[in-house]
């Protein structure tokens, strides 16, 4: 098992290497350059050209890429042109915000998706089943951006129940030992901060969690249906086992394998969905950072941010693979 994990982690190196090249070329294919972010609107073309030469952006791409790799090898992700801060500092400062939001979104998606899918399967072709099918179809097809604006319109603008932007009411004085605001509030016993940061999480978590919710519900339903038709379930029923025990021990646990795969994949994708959600909710996480980087042609931040997402995605997949072994003892890794 340990050997398998190590091999998988080693595999990260060539993956990142290839990815860094793609990302490097991709950001340079964007029209324009970082000059305007650096010098402002009034910069003349000559000034822009000078600054880009100064930054070495006129050198051949292989030379630029070589320099980038060299810095990368020493752990230097470069400096953001729009904030003048090291990229690694920007990423680590903003990561907790995105991670907190992703966790909240997954709690929402898993917490509702699995029971919904399970109930739908149990009431196969009933009203509830059909309703859940329609709902999950809407759930996967509605654009995150639109859903976010809609949620805000109803719950923040019209009803005024929830805040429309940010992670916490900025007038609340909260210390940030970890930068996970919910955790910070609990650690510092700041209950006002806790309620408020949870309130700020609700809408973005729903917006971000809706697609995974719909997908998890559908996969749970399909997997449960498969398992329900297995012989051992029929046997268990025939011998008069309590239906709730059948459901818990035999059906749900065996149906979980594909569901866990999907949860892992969705968690990885969630991080990218965060770009849209964070922008609409002015959530100060990696998503807004990357969006701004696109706007200002902030190459270093874009490269660093995308690589960071990629590492998370790969790690998430590894976790999924490992969790198989626990769910199904027949699976062994060597």
């Amino acid at each position, binding site marked *: 098992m340990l050997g398998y994990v190590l091999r998988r982690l080693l595999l990260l190196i060539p993956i990142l290497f290839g990815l860094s090249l793609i990302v490097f070329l991709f950001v340079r294919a964007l029209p324009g350059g970082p*000059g305007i972010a650096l010098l402002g609107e*009034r910069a003349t*073309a000559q000034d822009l050209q000078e600054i880009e030469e100064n*930054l070495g952006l006129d050198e051949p791409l292989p030379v630029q890429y070589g320099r980038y790799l060299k810095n990368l090898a020493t752990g230097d992700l470069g400096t953001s042109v729009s904030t*003048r801060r090291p990229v690694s500092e920007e990423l680590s400062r903003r990561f907790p915000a995105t991670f907190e939001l992703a966790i909240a979104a997954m709690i929402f998606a898993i917490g509702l998706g699995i029971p919904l899918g399970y109930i739908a399967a149990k009431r196969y072709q009933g009203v509830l089943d059909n309703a859940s099918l329609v709902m999950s179809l809407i759930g996967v097809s509605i654009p995150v951006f639109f859903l976010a604006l809609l949620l805000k319109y109803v719950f923040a603008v019209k009803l005024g*129940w929830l805040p429309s*932007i940010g992670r916490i009411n*900025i007038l609340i004085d909260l210390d940030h030992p970890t930068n996970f605001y919910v955790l910070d509030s609990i650690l510092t016993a700041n209950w006002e901060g806790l309620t408020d940061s949870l309130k700020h999480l609700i809408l973005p978590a729903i917006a971000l969690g809706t697609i995974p919710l719909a997908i998890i519900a559908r996969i749970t339903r399909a997997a449960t249906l498969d398992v329900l038709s297995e012989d051992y379930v029929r046997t268990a029923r025939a011998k008069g086992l309590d239906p709730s025990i059948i459901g818990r021990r035999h059906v749900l646990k065996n149906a979980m394998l594909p569901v866990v795969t999907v949860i892992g994949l969705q968690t990885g994708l969630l991080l990218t969905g965060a770009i849209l959600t964070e922008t609409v909710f*002015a959530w100060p996480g990696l998503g807004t950072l990357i969006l701004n980087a696109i706007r200002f042609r902030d190459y270093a931040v874009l490269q660093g941010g995308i690589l960071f997402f990629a590492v998370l995605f790969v790690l998430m997949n590894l976790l999924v693979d490992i969790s198989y072994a626990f769910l199904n003892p027949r699976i062994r890794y060597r």
Partner: protein
Amino acid sequence: MRGYLRLSAALLVAMLVLAACGGDDPAAPTDNGDAAADATMVFGTSADPVVLDGALVSDGESLRAIDQMFEGLVTLEPGGTEVVPGLATEWEISEDAMTYTFTLQEGVTFHDGTDFNAEAVCFNFDRWYNFPKPFQQADASYYYQTVFGGFKGNPDALYDSCEATDEHTATLQLTRPSASLLGALALTNFTIASPTALEEFGADEGKINADSLFQPTGTFGTEHPIGTGPFMFEEWNRGESLTMTRNPDYWNAEDATGNIGTLIFRPIADGAARLQALQSGDIQGYDLVDPQDFETIEGDENFQLLRRPAFNVAYIGMNQAIEPLDDVAVRQAIAHAVDRQAVVDGFYAGLGEVAHQFMPSSLPGYADDVTQYEYDPDKAKQILEDAGYTLPVKVDFAFPTDVSRPYMPDPQANFEALVADLEECCFEVETKSATWSPDYLGNVDTGKYGLYLLGWTGDYADPDNFIGTFFQTAQPAWGFDNDEVFGCLKDAETESDLDTRETMYQECNRILMDFLPGIPYAHTEVGLAFTANVEGYAPSPVTLEPFSIVTVNE
């Protein structure tokens, strides 16, 4: 499974309960009894500031924040472009426009309690002039280099010395005449910081990193920005909020008539999100209203829309090095052939007005009686035929892609309409395009295009910042060499008497619009939104907008 269901049900209930106990306005003014200045204003901006040191920034959001905490020797009247006293009560410009003597306001202290005086002023000027090498990079101190020409050791440097003649008199000596410097000194980039704080918090510490990018490393601009302004720095939570509190010892309390005790800037990149944040009460105002949201805001009695006067110009550039644009008849014909009003009505969402000269009317030197070129295709044809051309006349015309500017929200739409006008009248147009930066700008600057779309946003209130930038010297983009134009602008720039100077610039504008080096066609406004209970905000063409005069009513 049942337990699991119960858990999710509990989760859902918990969310709803949390949601229901909302409803209180998170940004409501805190009630601490002091009615005079205890209101809280949360203002939505489009991005976070970069660093809070005026000398080191060129982006609007940094400037906006610095404006609240720092002051310059001179400033602009709220909402206008007239230079008025700031930290200097009066000034005298010598006959040769090489010596500026500033009489300073007495009894002013910086936020750290140290005294503001002539030495502090000279300390700041000397700091800029003697910037260490990393700070001399264009991405660090672009504005200083643009206005002052360079640093110590550079023969082009405009600054010579600053002398504290006495406690409250600072004398600025230049290396050559300049009368436009006064207007430039109202720029936020030249506000005066506390010398003690600059030294203590390493304002001059910075490095060029592995990417050749300048990076300030001291904490002055991030944690200790200390000036003399009506607001003091409290906390900057990057990406989330910048909090400032009212300066209780502000020297000019008389003019700081507003009641904001806590001022918070919140970066919200998305325009629709800014609108919703206003509607839900999370913020009380925001800048850069999306044009499509104007109606929503104006139609809601809870909100108000303010318009920032235009301080830009969009124009069709004409390169006289390329035939037949060297012929003034052709240039006139083009001006008569295009329907500028239709372009402004069609593509500026009600924010534009037709431009008749190369600078906005809010600036001194704007002339009301320049030659105007009304839309009249028949007249255009006539002019060309009289000049002996066979129609259609061939021209090439370029526009930039991948760009949107306040003065040109949709370059391609402008371009297509203008080309259609030209072709319908009497021209055959060869169209060209390139990505904005660096290709398009580079091609324009090196004179590769005949006709081209471009524009300009001013940053300080001086005609020199508009027509001086364009036409004071021969430039490949315009392709002409006209001593009358160059001379007029040069004389006006160095004239030290402001009234005479205004008249001179008016004359330059008349000469220019007869010579017609290009066709200005639009000035655009920018929208700001506030809740209805906000009073006193004065939109300024150059975005020098103090919150100290803003009142938030109950």
